Every structure is written in C-alpha cells, then in structure tokens.
C-alpha cells in the first residue's frame, strides 16, 4: 500500500513552529544570559512535571499532524480519475489514526450504534431484539466491539481486572525503559548508571528529574491501561453515534494545541513590530497604531470573531472549488479562527510593548546607538527586541491556556471550529444536553473535562513559573518584600 502525504495549512504552520522553537532553543543554549531564566524554570519541580505532561500532549498532537492519503486496495483505476495509474482514497488520515488503529486492533474502524457506558458490554439504549423463537423483546443488545470477546458477559469484572493489571504491568515496563533512557541521558552514558539513578531518586541532580520520572510513571500507567483495556473495551464509552470516546479525546488534543500555539504565532510578529515601532518612532506613526489597536479592542471580542467566522463560512461556501475535501474545509476554518483570535488578542501585547518601547527609547544605550547613526529598523530589531523578549515569552506561554479554553466557548456559541473537527468544544457541546438524561450520560463530559483540565492546568502552572523566572520586576519586588515584611 502506498501513501501520498497531504500537507494541511495548519500542519505546515505547526511544523514551522516546531522548527522555530528548535531554533530558539539552540540560540538560547549558546547564550548564557538567555539561558539563565530557563535554568530557573528547569530547577522548579512543578515546571518540570508540567513540561512532561505538555510534552506528552505535544507528541499526540504532532502525531496527529502528519496527514496522508493511502491508495485504495481495490483499484478500479479509471484513467481520468488517476492519471498516475494509482488511486488514492478521499479519506485523509493522520499518523495518530494509524497508531490508534494499530494499538486498539479490533476496536478501530468499527463502531457501536449509540451511547455505551465505559467498559460496557451492552448498549446504553434498549432495542427490539428478535429471539430465536420469533418472539420480540426490548433488551439491551450486546455491543459490536466492546467486550465482544467475552463468551459470557458475566465474566466482565474478572476480565477487566486482569486486563487492568496487565496494563499496569505494561505501563511499568514502558516506564522502566523510558526511565533508563533518561538516566543514560542525565548521566551522559552507561558508566555511572546506578549512581545517576540514586542521585535522581534522592533529588540531588542539578535539575529535579524525580518529578519528571513520577509524572512519566503516571502517564505510562494510564497509557498502559488504556492500551490493554482499550483494545477490547470502550474504555471511556462511546458517543451518540457510537464512536470510541477515548479516540475522540485523543483526536481533540491537536485542535487544542493548534489553537493555543498558532493564534499566538500568527499575531506575534505583527504585535511586536507595531508595538515597538509605535513606541520608538512616536509622532503620527504612534497615533495611527494606537488608533488601530484602540479601535480593534473596542469591538466586543466574541462578536468580532462571530462576524468574521460567519464571513469565513460564507466565503468557503461560495468557493467550493478551493477546498476539495471536508478536512481541508474544516482546516481552513480552524486556521481562520486562529487568525481572527490573533487579531482580537494582539492589542494587549502591542499596548504593553509600546509602553516598554517608550521607556527604552530614552535609555542611554538606545540614545548611543542612535548617535552612532544606527538605522531605525536596526535599533528596533537589534537593540529593543532583545530587551522585550521576556515580555513576549511570558505572553506566548500565558496565552496558550486561555486560547484552549476560548475554543470550547466559541464552539458552544457556534462560531468555533467546524462541527466535523474533533475538539474539546465540540465534545462538550455534543454532551451538554445529555446530562439531563436519566440515567445520566456522564462519560463524554468527564473525558473532555479530564483531558482539558490536565492540559490547561499543566500549561497554567508552567506559565506561572515561566512568568516568575522571566519577569525581572517581579524578582526585584520579591526581594524587597522579603526585606520588609519578613513574612514573604
């Protein structure tokens, strides 16, 4: 089977962002003054644990950002449709889809008819079943996939317990492998492995690796149980049309990551350039830029987003030829949402940077640079930009979690991502009315809650540490507090 890669717009931007982050990291490593705040972040156990969680999410999201179309097995190749002689399926898949299909084996590709509880063997709704004797009865039918390997549904509890134990064991195994790799990496080689292990365990390494290992253990155990149990049962149940909720949740991660990162990335260059130019040049340029951001920030955010998204849908509907597949339509809408959210949220950073530039332009080194005849653009990029980098970093990190939360709200309002896109917002939206059912369909909301809270909480805690490490003003204030109050 051959495949052909499909590069979605958001995929391209996401991988570009990965490259940019790598370049930034490489640059930071070479400069001690840039490294200093990051070292402070690295020494914080909470930040390390959160970074581990975020890395796990990023892995899932990036695996979901490699899209391709596979060639159809049966190829009734018509010459017009496939000039290359090979026909590709219309369905665009991602690496994550393939991984899920591989890992969950029999669960993939098939689905139930409607809701089923987590780990259930029977459907959530009664159906009319015809018994062998021709008698019809209202019963809960067996699920097509969930627990289908059980001859007698009564064995369910024992089977689940065994599988959970096996899953925990598998998780432990995975953790040991990862832990060993980490030890080798931290100890720079195999030679002093026991020593490194002891140092990590007693938390005497320069960076706290113990919280990383503990977080990894939790993630590995969860993943192990999910893999072993999830290959025979619907671990988190199924949704209204019978899709596996665990799979849906994993697919939703990418949307959250795209919203959290691309929105900031889209607005960043513009906000930085506008803010610094306004503050440095003053005069009519300043007036113009201030007017633009005041105007944009005066429009109620949700309404501007709603207006722009309505216009985007009209545009997509009017130009169907530009978007051959549904995934591309959905992807364009996702990108449009990022751009619009970027437009509504750049004003805060721009105002902040303008204020900072107004202060910086009076400082001696800027005045000196000007006196030496350094050009305006060069002063801004070479002398001002490095001195506001901490503000940019803080904003980028802090905006991430806000954007993930915004996505859910916008999807509820009906101006979020395309209804066909998997996201936490669409999951919540689909489940919110089912909470009033009797008995309650709780697992959709619970899954969305768990995945979203762990992502946003990790991002928020990480952002808090980053802010503390990067903001020199706050450091000064803390020191003063300690001198004066004696309490802090």
């Amino acid at each position, binding site marked *: 089977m051959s495949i052909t890669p499909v590069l979605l717009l958001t995929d391209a931007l996401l991988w570009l962002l990965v490259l940019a982050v790598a370049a930034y990291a490489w640059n930071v490593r070479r400069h001690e003054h840039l490294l200093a705040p990051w070292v402070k972040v690295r020494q914080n156990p909470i930040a390390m644990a959160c970074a581990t969680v975020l890395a796990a999410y990023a892995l899932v999201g990036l695996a979901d950002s490699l899209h391709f179309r596979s060639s159809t097995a049966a190829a009734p190749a018509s010459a017009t449709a496939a000039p290359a002689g090979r026909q590709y399926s219309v369905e665009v898949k991602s690496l994550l889809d393939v991984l899920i299909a591989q890992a969950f084996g029999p669960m993939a590709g098939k689905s139930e008819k409607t809701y089923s509880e987590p780990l259930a063997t029977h459907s959530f709704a009664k159906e009319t079943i015809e018994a062998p004797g021709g008698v019809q009865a209202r019963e809960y039918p067996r699920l097509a996939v969930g627990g289908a390997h059980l001859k007698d549904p009564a064995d369910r509890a024992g089977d689940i317990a065994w599988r959970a134990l096996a899953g925990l064991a598998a998780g432990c195994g995975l953790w040991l492998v990862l832990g060993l790799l980490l030890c080798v990496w931290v100890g720079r080689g195999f030679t002093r492995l026991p020593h490194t292990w002891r140092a990590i365990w007693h938390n005497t390494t320069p960076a706290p690796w113990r919280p990383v290992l503990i977080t990894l253990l939790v993630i590995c155990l969860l993943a192990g149980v999910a893999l072993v149990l999830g290959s025979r049962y619907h671990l988190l149940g199924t949704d209204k049309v019978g899709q596996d909720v665990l799979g849906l949740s994993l697919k939703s991660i990418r949307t959250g990551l795209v919203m959290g990162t691309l929105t900031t990335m889209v607005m960043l260059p513009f906000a930085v350039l506008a803010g610094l130019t306004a503050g440095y040049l003053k005069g009519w340029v300043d007036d113009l830029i201030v007017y633009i951001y005041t105007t944009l920030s005066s*429009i*109620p955010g949700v309404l501007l987003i709603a*207006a722009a998204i*309505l216009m985007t849908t009209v545009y997509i509907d*009017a130009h169907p030829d530009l978007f051959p597949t549904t995934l591309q339509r959905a992807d364009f809408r996702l990108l449009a949402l990022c751009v619009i959210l970027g437009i509504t949220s750049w004003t805060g950073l721009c105002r902040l940077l303008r204020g900072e530039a107004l202060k910086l332009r009076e400082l001696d080194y800027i005045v000196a640079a000007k006196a030496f005849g350094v050009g305006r653009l060069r002063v801004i990029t070479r002398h001002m930009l490095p001195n506001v980098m901490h503000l940019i970093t803080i904003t980028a990190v802090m905006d991430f979690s806000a954007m993930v939360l915004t996505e859910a709200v916008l999807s509820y309002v009906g101006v979020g991502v395309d209804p066909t896109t998997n996201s936490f917002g669409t999951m919540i939206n689909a489940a*919110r009315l089912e*909470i009033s059912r009797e008995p309650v369909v709780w697992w959709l909301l619970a899954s969305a809650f768990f995945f979203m809270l762990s992502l946003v909480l990790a991002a928020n805690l990480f952002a808090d540490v980053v802010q503390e490490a990067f903001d020199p003003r706050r450091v000064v204030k803390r020191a*003063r507090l300690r001198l004066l*109050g004696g309490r802090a």
Partner: protein
Amino acid sequence: MMAYILRRIGYGLLVLIGVNLITFWLFFTVNTPDDIARIQLGGKRVTADAISKWKAERGYDKPLVYNAQATGGKKFTETIYYEKSAAMFVLDFGQSDDGRDIWYEIRTRAGPSLAIAIPTFIIGLGVNISFALLLALFRGTRFDFSSQIFLIVMMSISTLFFIIGGQFVFSKIWRLVPVSGFDGIFDGWRFIALPVLIGVTTSIGSSTRLYRTIFIEEVGRDYVRTARAKGLSELTVMFKHVLKNGMIPVLTGVVVVIPVLFMGSLLFESFFGIPGLGSYTIEAIQSQDFGIVRSMVFIGTVLYVLGLILTDISYTLVDPRVRLE
C-alpha cells in the same frame, strides 16, 4: 478637565467611526449581499430572482457607497452604507430578519441582562477583593500557597463545566433552583441565584490572583514601611492603608466593564434561558441574522468606549495625584 473629557469623547467618536467602517467592510464587501442572500435562501439552487427579491425586501439592493443614478445628496444617502451602517449613529438599527424592530428588542432585553450582570459583578468584586486581601495578609504561608494552587485550578476549568456542573448539582440533584428560565427582575430571584453564583465562581480564579498581585505590590511600598515603623498592627496596616491604596488600581480597572454589563453574558444567558441581550446575540449568530450582529457590535463598542472615558474620569476622582492634561 472639561476640555479633556470633550477630547476623549471626540476620540471615542473617531473609534466608533473606525469600528463602523470595519463592520461595513466585513459584512458587505468581503462577502457581497448576493453571497449572504444565497446562504440565507439555502445553497446553490437559488435563482437570481429570489436573490434580488430577498435583497429588495431588506433594502440591500442599492449600491454600496455611491449611487450614481440618484441626484444631488441622494448620491450618498441612497446607498447601503448610509442606510444600514451610518444610520446606527442615530440608533436606527432597522429590522431583524424576522421583521422586528432591533432597537425595541435591545431596550426590552437590557433589563434581564442587567438582572444577572449587576449582582454577579458586585458580589464577584466583593468576594474577590476580600479573598485577595486575605491572601495578602497571609502571604508566603501555606494557606497562601495552597490557595494559589486552588486559584490556578479554578482558572483552568472551562466556564462551560462550571455551568453544566452547577445546573446538574443544584437543579437536578438537589432541586434547589429551576434549571433555567426567567420571571421578572425582582420576583424571579430563584432563577437569578444560580447564574449569579456560578458567575462569581468562574471569576474567582483570575480576578483574585490579579488583586492579590496588586495588594502585594502595595505592601512593598514606602508608606507601608512608615506605617509599620509607627508601630501599627498588621491588621491596621492591611485594612486602613493597603486596602485603601490598593483599591485605586482595582476600581479604575473595573470601571471599563460597567457599561459593558448591559451586553449581558452570551454563555450564562443562553444556558439559563434569560431573555437578555446575550441570548439575543447568540440567537442572531446561530440564525445568521447579520442585521442584529451588526447592531450588537455597534452597541457593544459604544458601551466600551463609554467605559474607557469613565475610566479616565475615575482616575482623577479616586487619585488626587493624577492630573489630566
């Protein structure tokens, strides 16, 4: 002072004109009335006749900004911009797609919106300031640390979960209040209680953290040191000195949202079935009624600009050191 306020109002008008032009551009040039008519009437199989009829019924059949066929001043007045966009400056919003007067709807729906928004705002402010002051008093202790974690967790939970969970627990399990509905501003407290409670809960995370930072910044100032040097107790320092001075940034910071309270909350009003401006907006967005969305953008901007002007004035009222030039 008067000259300053007048200048601020002038700038506000300039901002309004900008917003007006942006919305006009978004709603009429990015997509022409033809596109919108086609979407409204449903898909590709719409005849040209149906489109022009739809446009004529709503007055969208005129040129955008310049009518070459008309005479004299009508070259500019008989255009979509003049009739649909510029008219909003005199509160002429026209009719919604179901034929109702938008301005009338806005006036009648503002009351229910305020019935939710004002209690949420006042109670939320009180709770958050008290909590923040408590944290500033116990700064650096275990109580402060665990509360900070609690606040970050509160910040990380989506408002949607608070609303859905609150309705589930208070209305479905405990049956204390109705799930949703509205019954007058003063009679229907049972309907108002839950949205207000949840609204306050959702605001705790970010607001308390912000206020705590403000108060702690205040604690580090020189006058606090002087007060301590005089031998005042920590409680007196906190409540008499830090609270009073810390209130300046807190209050001037919230003035800007007071006029915007009229707009109501999209989420709360639609989840709790409050017939306010928030649910009006969300219904308009979902039924793609562009007339209402444009009007709400305009009203929202007017209120926000008003909030900015009030903020500037409140600076001078609260803090005598600030002189407006």
